[in-house]
Structures are given as structure tokens and as C-alpha cells.
């Protein structure tokens, strides 16, 4: 296992720049998830780490050693591919030991490693089968087994769960997380699924247009998104982004959503980042997670970090675990995640509590977090 350092990685194909100065430092044993919509450059970045593509600039170091110029086979990195890439002409056993065979590891050690890996992944009974005789989940395990057998310093996972059906995807996600905890391996994992990113990562790099929009822990990325793109991309339902006007002075700042008298609301802010003062009297985008809103019970009082607002319910969507309510908040649509038994009807006016500790503001021009 080893630390990974990406410094100013650039990549262009002709005039098209795919990656712009990507720098990510990853400590030993971290689980980094590269997440973003398709075409954001996350797979290109992974291929550069693997050595399958050459960067146009910048450097890749693994465990303090510069590996930018090394061929993929000498990087001590193994990869699990989206299509599993199992060799169809070889049995499961041969597949798993292939990287060892290529490295001229002796037969006894090979057999030992295959046995250990097969036991770990519970595929011992499949060793003599060919890949075409396996189900999707089994193939996935074999692909992971082949990556493990080599005991590399870094694992790469390229959308490994996207070919599995929904239930199996959840199971394998947990398996991968367990595996990470057990091995303490350094992992880079590419996905376009933000839930996978949240559940697996110790750190997330949200990418768009070849630029890292935010690099942070799942908590940071979710609760303090660096810009409106991250706010909208991470989380389901997406973060509510509502245009509002900021008024008042330090300590007494408040935001106004919509027009007073026409269902407009005012929310007094607690002590917030000083940078926010500069926006007094100007427009901001207010970001509030759906679960930062709750239904105010009869006679409930707002806590120190809560504010009471009135809104009209437009649509109710029960999901079982909770109920999503689409609200009209000062003329803007706003989703709230409420308790499953919330007794609300469409068209009804109701009173809600907003947790202002979870409220963030963005500059409407730059779309960056005001922090």
C-alpha cells in the first residue's frame, strides 16, 4: 500500500483539453472516489494513473516514486474493469494467477495466493470454471480476485458495479467496503453514481469538464458543497437551490425568499462566515438539503438553530422510508424530506422547521460557495 500523488495532471487530445491541472494527494489506505457526469474526465484520469494513457503534463507518484513514465506493468497498480475483462480462454484459477504468472512467480506461491484470494471472496467452488459459465456477480468477484492476487500498492476500480442489477450492486458495494476495511488498501474508484461515492469513499473528488470541482470527505462534499454543481450533483433528491436576497448586518443577517406578502419568507441567519457580510443587500443562492427541513408539530418551538417557515404543499411523494414533499416556498419549488407518516395533503399550507446550521449560500455570479 502506498500514498498517491497527482500533481497538475493535464491531458489534451489535439485542441480538446480533457483534464485541466488536476492535483490530488491521497494518503496510504485512503479510498478516493472520482465521481462526475459522463465526459468529465474521470476515466481518463484513472487511465493516466494506470499508465494506459500518457498525460500531456504533470506527474503521478506512488509511494514517493515518480511513475509518470513507467509502463502499466511496472507500476504495481491493478485494476478492476467495468466489463470485468476476464480472459475467456482461461479458467477462473488461471485468470486469478495470470498476473503472477506474467511476473514469473513460482507455482507454489501462485497456488497459495489463488487459494487465499478465493477463500476471501468465497469463489473456491468456481476455480475450474470458465468466465462464460459465471453470473455477473461471480465474474465481478473473480475480477476483484485477480486484482488482489498481485498484492499491488494501489487498486483502481473503473465503474465496477455498473453492469450488475440493482440488488447485487448494493451487495457488492458492501463487499468492496468490507474489503477496503480489511485490507487497508489504497483505492481509486471511478463512478458516476453519487450514492456509491458517498457510501464508499474516505474522500470524494467531484469532477466536471476536466476540473476537480471539490475534493473532500463525503461529509464536506455533501454538507458544504464548493459550488452549485456539486450541490446539485451530490445527494438525492438534489440540494434545493433557491434565489434569495440577503439583508441586514453582521450578526443580524437574514435572507428573503420571494416577495413579502406573496408567500415570501424571511429566515434570520445565525453567525455565518464573515464573507457573507459582503453580500448584504445583494442576491444569493441559498442551498438547503431536503432533510434539513422538517414538519413543525402543533405548538412546537424553534430551537436556536431552527427557523419556522410557512409553505404550501404542491406534491407528496411517499418513498416508504420517508416522504418527499414538493413545497412552494415564496414562489420557488423546494423539496423537503419528511417522516414517512407526515399527514399532509397537496394544496395544504403547513408550517416547517428549517435547520439553518445546514444552510449554505452561493454567489449567483460565480456559483461558488460563500465561505
Amino acid at each position: 500500500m502506498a500514498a498517491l500523488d497527482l500533481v497538475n495532471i493535464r491531458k489534451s487530445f489535439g485542441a480538446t483539453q480533457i483534464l485541466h491541472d488536476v492535483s490530488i494527494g491521497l494518503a496510504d489506505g485512503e479510498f478516493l472516489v472520482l465521481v462526475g457526469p459522463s465526459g468529465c474526465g474521470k476515466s481518463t484520469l484513472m487511465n493516466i494513473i494506470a499508465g494506459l494513457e500518457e498525460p500531456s503534463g504533470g506527474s503521478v507518484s506512488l509511494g514517493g516514486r515518480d511513475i509518470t513514465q513507467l509502463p502499466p506493468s511496472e507500476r504495481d497498480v491493478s485494476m478492476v474493469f467495468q466489463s470485468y475483462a476476464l480472459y475467456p480462454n482461461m479458467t477462473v484459477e488461471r485468470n486469478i494467477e495470470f498476473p503472477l504468472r506474467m511476473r514469473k512467480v513460482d507455482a507454489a506461491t501462485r497456488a497459495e495466493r489463488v487459494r487465499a484470494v478465493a477463500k476471501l471472496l468465497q469463489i473456491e467452488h468456481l476455480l475450474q470454471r470458465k468466465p462464460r459459465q459465471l453470473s455477473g456477480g461471480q465474474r465481478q468477484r473473480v475480477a476483484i480476485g485477480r486484482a488482489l492476487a498481485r498484492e499491488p500498492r494501489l487498486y483502481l476500480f473503473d465503474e465496477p458495479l455498473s453492469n450488475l442489477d440493482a440488488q447485487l450492486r448494493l451487495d457488492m458495494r458492501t463487499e468492496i467496503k468490507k474489503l477496503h476495511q480489511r485490507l487497508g488498501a489504497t483505492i481509486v474508484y471511478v463512478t458516476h453514481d453519487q450514492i456509491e461515492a458517498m457510501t464508499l469513499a474516505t474522500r470524494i473528488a467531484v469532477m466536471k469538464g476536466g476540473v476537480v470541482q471539490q475534493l473532500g470527505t463525503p461529509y464536506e462534499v455533501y454538507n458544504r458543497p464548493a459550488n452549485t454543481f456539486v450541490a446539485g450533483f451530490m445527494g438525492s433528491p438534489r440540494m434545493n437551490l433557491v434565489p434569495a436576497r440577503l439583508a441586514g448586518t453582521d450578526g443580524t443577517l437574514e435572507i428573503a425568499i420571494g416577495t413579502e406578502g406573496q408567500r415570501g419568507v424571511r429566515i434570520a441567519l445565525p453567525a455565518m462566515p464573515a464573507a457573507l457580510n459582503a453580500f448584504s443587500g445583494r442576491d444569493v443562492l441559498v442551498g438547503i438539503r431536503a432533510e434539513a427541513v422538517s414538519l413543525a408539530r402543533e405548538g412546537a418551538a424553534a430551537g436556536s438553530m431552527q427557523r419556522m417557515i410557512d409553505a404550501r404543499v404542491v406534491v407528496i411523494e411517499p418513498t416508504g422510508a420517508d416522504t418527499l414533499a414538493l413545497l412552494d416556498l415564496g414562489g420557488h419549488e423546494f423539496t423537503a424530506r419528511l417522516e414517512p407518516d407526515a399527514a399532509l395533503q397537496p394544496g395544504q399550507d403547513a408550517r416547517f422547521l428549517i435547520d439553518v446550521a445546514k444552510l449554505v449560500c452561493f454567489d449567483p455570479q460565480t456559483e461558488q460557495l460563500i465561505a
Partner: protein
Amino acid sequence: MSERSAFAPQRVLLYALLVFLAMLFLLPVYVMVANSFKPLDEIRAGDLMALPVQWTVEPWLAAWSTAQIGVQPTGLRPYFLNSFLLVVPAVIISTLIGALNGYILTQFRFRGAAPLFAAMLFSVFIPFQIVLIPMAKTLGLLGLAGTVKGLVFVNVVYGIGFTTLFFRNYYAAFPPELVRSARMDGAGFFGVLFHILLPNSAPIIIVTVIWQFTNIWNEFLFGASFSDYSSYPLTVALNNLVNSSTGIKEYNVHFAGAFIAAIPTLVVYVLSGKYFVRGLMAGSVKG
């Protein structure tokens, strides 16, 4: 539902037509086989279509081991061997080179790959006659003129265009992740080819082998131009058998000889014809 019945009038007509066409195609084969088992007198008596009255294997034995080929009464046997010594290495070498070319043209993006492939493809359309004189010169320079090795060389060179075409189209549709994975797993240039690509190339290998085998086995012009009496392939020997006149034309021996020459290609087709069609389709559709 009457169209579905095997005995509907249209069906009967269709089958009758097919049977008629098949017979038309098989007629020459019938004539060859029937007459190869007749004594010469029966052929001279006139009826080529009749079955032998007196069956004899004498013409077959003669064609195989005693018939006059040019000046020597060796039969086709030594030339049959020559053809094998020519075909086996020529097929193996041209197939391997085709696989190597296909691998390089598809897995390594280098400048000029497309024009290079176009040029190799163009070689497929060059008629044999055009290369005769330059090839004779080349063989002379290499010291391979008049040898089986020289013929192997000529047929390999001529076959590379075809084999490259086959393998390039097959490998263009080969899952790139397998190759990437093998590279990460530590396979080098030849490791990828021998461990990953070739073991998963059975259909296209079969197509290439059948194609090259039949072409080289049946090839006459290069054989006639670049070999001498010690290295004649079977096709040239067959021609000599027919043209070596000792006064009487031994048609029964000629028929038997022609059939002997056709047996290996027939065997190859019967054994792997279905793969041939399948492989050709795969290459053409996916490439």
C-alpha cells in the same frame, strides 16, 4: 398453412430445382470418379457417363506411384509431399504474420496505421502475373530459386495481405479492456498476443487457415514459375502428368490424379466448412 408443408407444390418445385443444380455441380466430380475406376478400354469405347463395367483401382495406383511425370515415372507421390512441405509452413507463417499485423494495426495507434493497412489491402488486388519477374529476381538474390523454401517465401508474401485483412478486422472488434487488463497484469508485447489474442481467435484462425491452405494448395502459376523438377508442387506435377505423352492419353490415370490433388482441400472443407462461413461473417460484420 399449405406453404409450410414440405410437399406443397412450390416446395417440391424448389427442391427439384435445387437437386437439379446440385447434380449439375456434381456431374464433373461424378465423371472424374466414375472414369478413374475404369480400364482405359472402357473409356475409349465412348460412354463417359456410364459406371465402370469392370472396376479397377489400377489408375489410382498408377497416378500415385508409377505414372510418368515429365521424364520420371514416379507418380504424384513425391509432389504430394512437396505440396505438403510447401503448404504447412506457408500457412503457419502467413497466419502468424497476419495475426501479428492485425495486433499491431489495431492495438497500437501509430501515425500512418491507416495508409499502411490500405497499402496491405491493396496487395490483395495485385494479379499474380505482375509480380512474377520481380519475384524471380528476389528469389535469385535470396538464393531460394527452384526450391520448396522459395515457394514458401512467395506464398507467404502473397498471403500476408489476406491474412492481415482477416486478423485486423477480427481484432478491431476485440474487447480493448482485455488487452488493457493484460498489459496491467504484466503481459508484454508478445505476452498479449500469445496469451490473450491468439487463444481467443479460433474462428478467424480457422478462416485464415482454410483460405491459405486452399489457395496455396491449388496455386499453379508460382509453382510453375519458381520451382524445378525436385520442388514441383502437386498442381504442376498434375499438369505434367497430363502433358507427359507416351503415345496414349491415359484418361483414367489423369482423372485419378486430379482427384488425388483435390482430396486435401475437400477434407479441410468438410471438417471446418461451417467455421469458415461463420468466421467470414464475423469478420465482415464486426470489422
